[in-house]
């Protein structure tokens, strides 16, 4: 009996190490009464450390809502979300902020850089909300990693779209997160800049980062090793080509 319990716990612990994300029957409902929309409907998903997962789907399929839940920007209406073993669906705002800060790096379609700040100040931002020394050095390292070592003092409006998105990736990287969550990262970029950005993401995955990429573009999804598809809030696995 006792041996079994220990074994079960060990087993779960082993699972926890490998499994970064486990969504169990997660739903997100907007509105009430007749106007109810199941943006995410009974989704179960597991992501392991080092995975490169693409979530595909047309607009309105619920993939953005799923991304917000995965990124701890929003909480599910029902179901359980375990992030690196921690039950995120029961966390308060303060704890969620801490998870986002320590564990998750965001890359947005709109870049969301602060226009009044230089590249390295933008990259430094997440470090301001944790105790970190050498923030400037860490920001420089992250910018070097995305090939922008010579652009650290530039403001966003002095950079091309591709460069801005690379600054945003550096900002996601700088905290050494457990997972990088990229929401249509190439949506506002031309094909050349898109390729650069995807190359960087692939490189990060190769060096051990877990990446979740949300896109409607099959070509973009193609860089991922695993693709899931959202349709009407439901999730279906697809074997990558």
């Amino acid at each position, binding site marked *: 009996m006792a041996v079994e319990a220990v074994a079960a716990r060990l087993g779960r612990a082993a699972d926890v190490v490998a499994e970064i994300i486990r969504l169990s029957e997660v739903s997100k409902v907007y509105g009430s009464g007749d106007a109810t929309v199941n943006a995410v409907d009974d989704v179960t998903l597991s992501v392991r450390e080092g995975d490169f997962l693409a979530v595909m789907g047309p607009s309105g399929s619920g993939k953005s809502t799923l991304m*917000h839940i995965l*990124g701890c*920007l*929003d909480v599910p209406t029902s179901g359980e979300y375990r992030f690196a073993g921690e039950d995120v669906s029961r966390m308060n*705002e*303060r704890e969620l*902020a*801490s998870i*986002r*800060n*320590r564990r998750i790096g*965001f890359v*947005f379609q709109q870049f*969301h850089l*602060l226009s*009044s*700040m230089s590249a390295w*100040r933008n990259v430094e*931002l*997440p470090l*301001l*909300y*944790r105790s970190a020394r050498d923030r400037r050095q860490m920001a420089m390292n992250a910018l070097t990693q995305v090939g922008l070592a010579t652009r650290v003092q530039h403001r966003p409006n002095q950079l091309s779209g591709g460069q801005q998105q690379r600054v945003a990736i550096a*900002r996601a990287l700088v905290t050494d997160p457990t997972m990088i969550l990229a929401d249509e990262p190439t949506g506002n970029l031309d094909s050349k800049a898109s390729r650069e950005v995807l190359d960087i993401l692939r490189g990060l995955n190769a060096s051990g980062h877990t990446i979740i990429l949300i896109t409607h573009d099959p070509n973009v999804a193609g860089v991922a090793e695993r693709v899931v598809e959202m349709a009407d809030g439901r999730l279906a696995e697809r074997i990558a080509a």
Partner: protein
Amino acid sequence: MNLLRTFDTGMRGLLGHRLRSILTTLGILFGVAAVICTVGIGTASADSVNSRIAALGTNLLTISPGSTTSGGVRGGGGSANTLTMQDVVGLADKQDAPDVAAVAPVVQAQATLVSLGSNWATNVQGSSPGWLVTNARTVSAGVFFTQQQVQQHAQVAVLGVTTAAQLGVTIGDQVTIGGSPFQVIGLLSASGGSAFTNGDDLAVVPITTAQDQVTGGSPNSVQRILLSATSGSTIGSAYDEATQLLLQTHHIVTPASADFTITSPTTLASTAASVTTTLTILLASVAAISLLVGGIGVMNIMLVSVTERTQEIGLRKALGATPRDLLRQFLIEAATLSFVGGVLGVCAGLLAGILVPHFAGIAVTITPTPVIIAVVVAAGVGLIFGVYPAARAARLAPIAALRAE
């Protein structure tokens, strides 16, 4: 996030939005400066009227012949001199008029004064020693003439400072008035200035001498009688006593047909005071409106930038900022703008308080109360409208804030 880093972030936020920061600061600055300046001007003019009232003497009455009720100080033009030395003696009676402290008869005429080097036409008044008290004046040098000198028809004169300066004479010198030599025995202190006459350009001589040498006329007749009540609070009863006494001695039954008029300089002054009060209210209203306009300007700038700031708030939340971090940041930003604007506004107001009297010739008296009110209101508006929208945005879900448009 520790305080120092929050402060750093807040300052960076201000520097990153220079135009907005400058406009907000200016709004507060002008609001505060306008209030300080306008209230200062109002206070100064009220003070000046008050000091003029005090200079006129709040316990003084003037009795002039004639029945005009609106009260010409010189008496009804061409009306017979109905006031006599008997009236003066009667009013000086402590039993009949216990609230009258001093009485002085006045006769006056324009005359040319001649000194060694120059001559100067001025107002020569003949009176008694009571003149000083009943005019609320003092002697700055020398002495005033005595009752004895009045009885002796002494050839002595007391001059106003302007008159003495024009004639180039001082105490002990001789001046000729109406062809007779007078010795200058005293100089009057500079007057507070009255509304109608220059109190510093005149010569006062004993009434007996004046009647002999300058004004002519019956020695029994006087042009005006000046009274001073025992204090400002007894002026009403002094007025009643004088009226009763004169009605009696002049054998007049109904007060309406009185052949004399009693006026008080304070009636003039109170009119002036009410004008000043109106002026102060007007200026204070202008100041309040400028403060309001400044406040609305600050509010506008803050609210216009809310969308932009909302996205920033959303991003910062996504990157791990807690609502408390954000609230602190915006509090520091708003407090800095309000503080800088307030301090600069006070400086500008004080500077205007120095420059306006210098260049525009308008006195400005700066008192602490409007300064404090102006700073509190202007800085308060800056704080509230700097923090409140941000605090609301900080409570939004990060995604809602990020998507704000």
